C-alpha cells in the first residue's frame, strides 16, 4: 500500500521510554536525598540552626560564664542583668545565665532522650504486635492494656524519689520512658493494622524478606511522619512532665537544676525580679519552637508525596 509513505512523511517518532544508556549506574543515596529535601525548606534550616545554637549554649555556656551554677554570689542577690551577671541573679544569688545553661542541658537531655526512647520502643513493639498476628498479638494487646491502667505518675515519683544526687536525671529519663510508650504503641499498632495489608508488605513477605527487615524497612518508615511528630511533641511533653515533677520536688532535685526548677524558682518572684522567669522561659520556647520547625521539615523531607521536593 502507498500509505506507508504517509506515516514516514514528516513523522517524528515519539520518545521511547528507555534511552540509550552507558551501562554504569550512578545514584544518590536515600539519606542524601532526605538531607537535600530538608535543606530546601528555609524554616527547617532555621529550626536546625536554632537547635544547634541551643545545644552550643548548653555545652559551652558554663565555660564562658563568669559564675558556676552552684556558686552563688552572696554580694548580688536578686540583681538585674549586668556585665557581671548577664541574665541577672536569683534571690539566692545564683547566676541565672549559668543556671539556664545547666538547666537547658538537663532538660534537653531528659526531653530528647526519653522522647527518642519512647518513640523507638513504641514503634518497635507497636508494629511487632500488629505484624506478628495470632497469639503474639493477643498477648501483646493484653500487656499493653494492663500497662495503660497503671498510675504512671505515682510510680515515676516513687522511682525518682529513691534515686538521688547527680545521676537522678537519668533515672527520671528512664522512668518517663518506661511509662510513656504504652499509649503511643497502641496508636502505632492501629496504624500498622492497615499497613500490613498493603501489597508491598505482602510482596516483601513472599520475596522471603525477614520479619524484622520488613518492620524496619517498610512499616516503620511508612509511619514516619507520625513518628516524627510524636518525637517532637514528645520532647515538649517530656519537658513538661519533668517540670511538673520538679515543681513537686520529685523530678530533678537540688543541687542539680533543670529549666523546670528555675521556672519554679522564678514564678514566685515574677513581680520583683522578672528576669529569673524570663530567661528560662525564652529558652524553653526556643527549644520547643525549634523542635517543631525541624519536625515539619523532616516530615516533608521523608514524605515522598510532599510538595517540598518533587524534583529530587
Amino acid at each position: 500500500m502507498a500509505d506507508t509513505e504517509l506515516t514516514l512523511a514528516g513523522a517524528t517518532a515519539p520518545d521511547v521510554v528507555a534511552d540509550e544508556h552507558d551501562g554504569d549506574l550512578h545514584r544518590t543515596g536515600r539519606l542524601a536525598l532526605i538531607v537535600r529535601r530538608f535543606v530546601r525548606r528555609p524554616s527547617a534550616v532555621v529550626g536546625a540552626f536554632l537547635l544547634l545554637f541551643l545545644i552550643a549554649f548548653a555545652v559551652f555556656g558554663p565555660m564562658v560564664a563568669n559564675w558556676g551554677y552552684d556558686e552563688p554570689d552572696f554580694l548580688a542577690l536578686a540583681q538585674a542583668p549586668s556585665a557581671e551577671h548577664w541574665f541577672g541573679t536569683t534571690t539566692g544569688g545564683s547566676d541565672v545565665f549559668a543556671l539556664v545553661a545547666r538547666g537547658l542541658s538537663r532538660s534537653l537531655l531528659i526531653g530528647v532522650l526519653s522522647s527518642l526512647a519512647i518513640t523507638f520502643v513504641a514503634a518497635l513493639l507497636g508494629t511487632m504486635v500488629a505484624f506478628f498476628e495470632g497469639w503474639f498479638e493477643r498477648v501483646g494487646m493484653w500487656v499493653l492494656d494492663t500497662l495503660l491502667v497503671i498510675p504512671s505518675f505515682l510510680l515515676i515519683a516513687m522511682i525518682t524519689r529513691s534515686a538521688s544526687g547527680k545521676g537522678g536525671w537519668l533515672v527520671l529519663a528512664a522512668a518517663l520512658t518506661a511509662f510513656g510508650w504504652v499509649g503511643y504503641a497502641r496508636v502505632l499498632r492501629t496504624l500498622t493494622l492497615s499497613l500490613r495489608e498493603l501489597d508491598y508488605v505482602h510482596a516483601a513477605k513472599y520475596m522471603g524478606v525477614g520479619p524484622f527487615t520488613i518492620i524496619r524497612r517498610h512499616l516503620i518508615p511508612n509511619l514516619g511522619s507520625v513518628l516524627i511528630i510524636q518525637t517532637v511533641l514528645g520532647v515538649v511533653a517530656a519537658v513538661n512532665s519533668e517540670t511538673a515533677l520538679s515543681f513537686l520536688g520529685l523530678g530533678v532535685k537540688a543541687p542539680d537544676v533543670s529549666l523546670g526548677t528555675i521556672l519554679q524558682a522564678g514564678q514566685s518572684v515574677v513581680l520583683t525580679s522578672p528576669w529569673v522567669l524570663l530567661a528560662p522561659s525564652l529558652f524553653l520556647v526556643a527549644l520547643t519552637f525549634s523542635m517543631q520547625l525541624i519536625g515539619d521539615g523532616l516530615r516533608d523531607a521523608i514524605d515522598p508525596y510532599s510538595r517540598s521536593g518533587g524534583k529530587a
Partner: protein
Amino acid sequence: MNAIVTANEPADRLIRPGEFGVDPVLSVRDLHVSFASEAGTVRAVRGVSFDLLPGRTLGIVGESGSGKSVTSLSVMGLLDANARVEGSIRLKGRELLGLTENELSKYRGNDMAMVFQDPLSALTPVFTIGDQLAEALDLHQDLSRKQVRDRSVELLDLVGIPNPAERLKSFPHQFSGGMRQRVMIAIAIANNPDVIIADEPTTALDVTIQAQVLDVLKTAQRETGAAVVMITHDLGVVAGVADDVLVMYAGRPVEKASVDQLYARPAMPYTMGLLGAVPRPDRGENRRLVPIQGTPPSLVDLPVGCPFAPRCPVATDECRVAEPDLVPVAGNEDQLAACIRADELAAQGVTYDQVFTVDESAPSVLADVPRAERAPVLEVTDLRKHFPLTKGGILRRTVGAVKAVDGVTFDVREGETLALVGESGSGKTTTLLEILKLEAPQGGTIAVLGKNVAELPRAERRALRRELQIVFQDPMSSLDPRLPVYDVLAEPLHVHGWSKQRINDRIAELMKLVGLNPDHVDRFPSQFSGGQRQRIAIARALAVEPKLVVLDEPVSALDVSIQAGVINLLEDIQATLSVAFLFVAHDLSVIRHASARVAVMYLGQVVELGDTEAVFTAPRHPYTRALLSAVPVPDPQVERTRERIVLTGDLPSPAAQITGCRFASRCPTRALLPPEKQQRCDTELPVLTGQDHTVACHFPVSPENPGLPTKEN
C-alpha cells in the same frame, strides 16, 4: 429459566440525527470545567459540545483523566464547589448552568438521572430498597402510598429482580453487586427521565453480570424512551450499546461519529491507537498488540498544539503549533475529528497498523519444545481451603464452612502461561495465596519445581521463595512509596545475599529489560505513571530470575493504551527468559491474548482446563460458554449479530451446601435435560475428565454439536 437471546437487534434505533427535526433533549455547548489545585489550574474539560436526541445512546470513551466523568458530573451539577464551569448545558431548552442547588434538584432524578459506577456505595445501607425507591418517587411525584408501592414493584420487576414485592423490604447488603446495580437503574428510571447518565455502570461487575445489567439498561431505555449517556473506558461495551461515540483525550473530544463509522474507519490517530491496543476476545490470531507510546499529558500545563502530538506517530511540526478543532471529516460529514491530518488519513483509509508500529515479538527459546517435554514448575493437586463460619459471641461455634477453594488441580510447565479465570468469588485469589504461602495446604498438595512444599525444611523453603515471585494488580500499593526504585529492586536481591556490585549491575539490567531509563532509579514510585510502576513491579519480580511469576490481574488497573505495552513486555520476557506465568485475570480478552492454557474456575473448582485456543473456540462446559459469550467485543457488527447466553441469577454463596454440580442452579444445559439426568447434576459432583482439554461436567457440550448436550459421560 435461561434464554438465549440475540443481542442488540438494530430494531429500536429510533431517530437519526437531523431527521424529522427532533429537538435534542440535552444540548451541551463548549463546556469548560477547571479545578483549582496546588499545582495550578487543572483544565479537566476543554470545550465539549454534543447533542443528545431522545431514545439514542451516546457513548463517551476515553482513558482515565480524559474528562469523561467530569463532563457527566457537570451536566448533573454534582461537581465540587472548587470547580469552575463555563459554557452552556441545556436540558429540553432550559439552561442548567447558573441554577441554584434547589432549582437543580427539581431536574435531578426527574428529568435526568444518574447510574453510578460503584453499586456498593450508591445505596444507603440503613434504609430498605423500598424506602429508597419511595424516596425517589415521592420527591418528584404526588403519589399515594399504594401508588408508590405499586410503582416500586413495577420498577423492580422491570429491572428483573425476582419476587419484587418481598424484596422491597430487603436492605442493600442483602443484594449482590449486580442486583444493587439493577436497583440503581430502577431508581434512575423511577420518574421517567429524559436523560440517563450511566458512569461506568458495569466496570465493578463481573462479565456475566455485566451482560445482564447492560440488557436491563437497554430495557429501561426502551420503556422510558430516554436518551442515555454511556461513559466507559471499555471499547467492547460501547460497541454493544452506543449509537454515537465521542472519544475524549486530555479534556477534549477528539473524534465523534456513529458507532459503525468510528470502529470501521477511525479518522483520528488516537482512536486508531485505542482500537489497536485493545485485545480481541473473538480472535485467536497471534497479532501483537499495538501500544501508544508515552503517557497522557498533565492537565495543568498542556503542551502547545495538539495534546496528542507527543504520542502521535504521524504528527508533523504543524501539529505542535495550534490545537485542531473538531471539524467534519472530508467525505463523511457525520464524522467529526480533531486532527489536521484527518482528511488525509480518512481518504487513504489508513488503519492503526499502518499508523502505529510495534516491535516484532522476541522469538521464544522454548518454542520447539513440546509441552509434554517441558519440566513442570508448579503442580497443584486437589487443593482445598475452607474458612470456618462461626457464630456466637463468647462461645464461638463453627456453623459451617466457606469453601473458597475446593479441589483445584492444575499444573504449569516451564515457559508457559496458565491463566486462571473466573468471576469474583470463584476462588482465584485464595488459590494464589495458598500457593504463595509455600506451606502445607489444608488439603491437597502443592509442588514447586517438583518439591512438595508440605515436606520442605525451613531453609529449603526459603530458597524456593526465589523461584516464585508475584506481581500485584495495583501498582500504586505494591511499591513502597517511601523507597526509591533502586531500593525497591534491590530488596529481593539483598534477601538472597547478592553483593553490592552485582546488585548495581543487575538493577541497571532490569530497568532496561522492562523499558525504563536506568537513570531514574533515584525516583520515588509516585513520580512514575501507572504503566511504568507496573513495569517496576515486574522488574522486581524478575530480579532474582524466578522460574514462576504469579501475575494477579497485572493489567486490569491500567488504561488500554498502556495495558498493551505491558502485555507485550510480558510476552517478550517469557520468550527470552522462559519463565512461567500463572496469570490471574477476569478480562477474557487479555487472557486469550496472553496465555497458552486457561483454567476456568467456578465456586472454588476448576470446571474446564485446556489450551486457550481450544477452550475459546470450542468451550465444553456450559459455564465457560456463557462466560465467553458475555464478553463484549470491540466491534459493533459482531456485537449486533452474535448470540449471547445470559445466565440468570448470581453466583451462589460459597457457604451454601451443594452436593451436586456447583453450577447446576444456573446451568442452561441442565434446564434442557430430562428429570433423571437433572437428578445426576444435583447429586453427583462432576470431576475433571478428558485428556488435554479437561472438563468437569456430566453432560459437556460436544465439539460437533455446540449448543445441545449430546454425549453422555
